[in-house]
């Protein structure tokens, strides 16, 4: 009877992309960028001027009239939601021990993440700051020049 044992200290050869490694790197890379993006977002929306009281449709329309904030908010949407979803994936893998439950939760997470990314991107890129038929006092001031 012959038993062959693998040579010690030889790691099994992995094939393909090491997704766990890239997930690990993504959390750190996106995390650093998100610190800047989120604190900037919070400062402009909560600390400048009247803070939270200033936020309404016209405020959002005013921000998205500037491509700077369109890019900022798009980056925020994608980096933050994927960062959060990957963190939730880690937690599901830690605590959902039954394979069936883990599968259901993982697919639900992936599904809701993709839906929210598509929804968010559509909202940002198909946004109409001056929708027809809306009362002028709810719209940003520049709509008066167009209508």
């Amino acid at each position, binding site marked *: 009877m012959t038993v062959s044992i693998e040579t010690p200290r030889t790691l099994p050869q992995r094939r393909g992309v090491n997704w766990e490694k890239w997930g690990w790197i993504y959390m750190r890379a996106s995390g650093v960028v998100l610190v800047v993006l989120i604190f900037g977002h*919070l400062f402009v929306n909560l600390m400048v001027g009247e803070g*939270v009281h200033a936020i309404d449709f016209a405020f959002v329309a005013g921000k998205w009239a500037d491509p700077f904030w369109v890019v900022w908010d798009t980056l925020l949407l994608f980096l933050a939601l994927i960062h959060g979803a990957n963190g939730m994936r880690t*937690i599901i893998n830690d605590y959902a021990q039954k394979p069936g439950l883990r599968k259901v939760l993982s697919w639900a997470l992936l599904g809701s993440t993709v839906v929210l990314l598509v929804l968010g991107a*559509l*909202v940002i890129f198909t946004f109409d700051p001056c929708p027809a038929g809306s009362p002028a006092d709810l719209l940003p001031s520049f709509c008066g020049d167009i209508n």
Partner: protein
Amino acid sequence: MPEKSAGALADAQPVGRKQAVEQKPQGLRVSGTLYRGREGMWSWVLHRITGVSIFFFLLVHILDTALVRLSPEAYNAVIGAYQTPIMGLGEVGLVGAIGFHALNGLRIILVDFWSVGTRHQRLMFWLVWVLWAVLMIGFTPRHLMNVFGG
């Protein structure tokens, strides 16, 4: 039956503990090398709790912002809920959670990549709280003035 086994366990315990001490004298000073129960554990626990909280806020926040595509009236009605005093206090909690998660995340990156990061992880945990306190002292009064001052 359960009572009997519990009694047996209680009888056996002092002997067992004594044996453990005799066999492993270094077990008495084990706290310094354990991850569990110290700053590292609380950093991990709080990172998870704040992370999950922020994730669920983010889900709601993407949905409420999506209302700008529906109509100005719908968006203003829902965003008005964020401007009530109760939500104003909730926003202090949200910023507190984000502040800790951000600063502790930077600490984790330093532990991973800085050559002496692991050696200073405990000090950095407390530094996170110092910076967090500075952040909250800067944010909270101004935000609450906006919320309650009208």
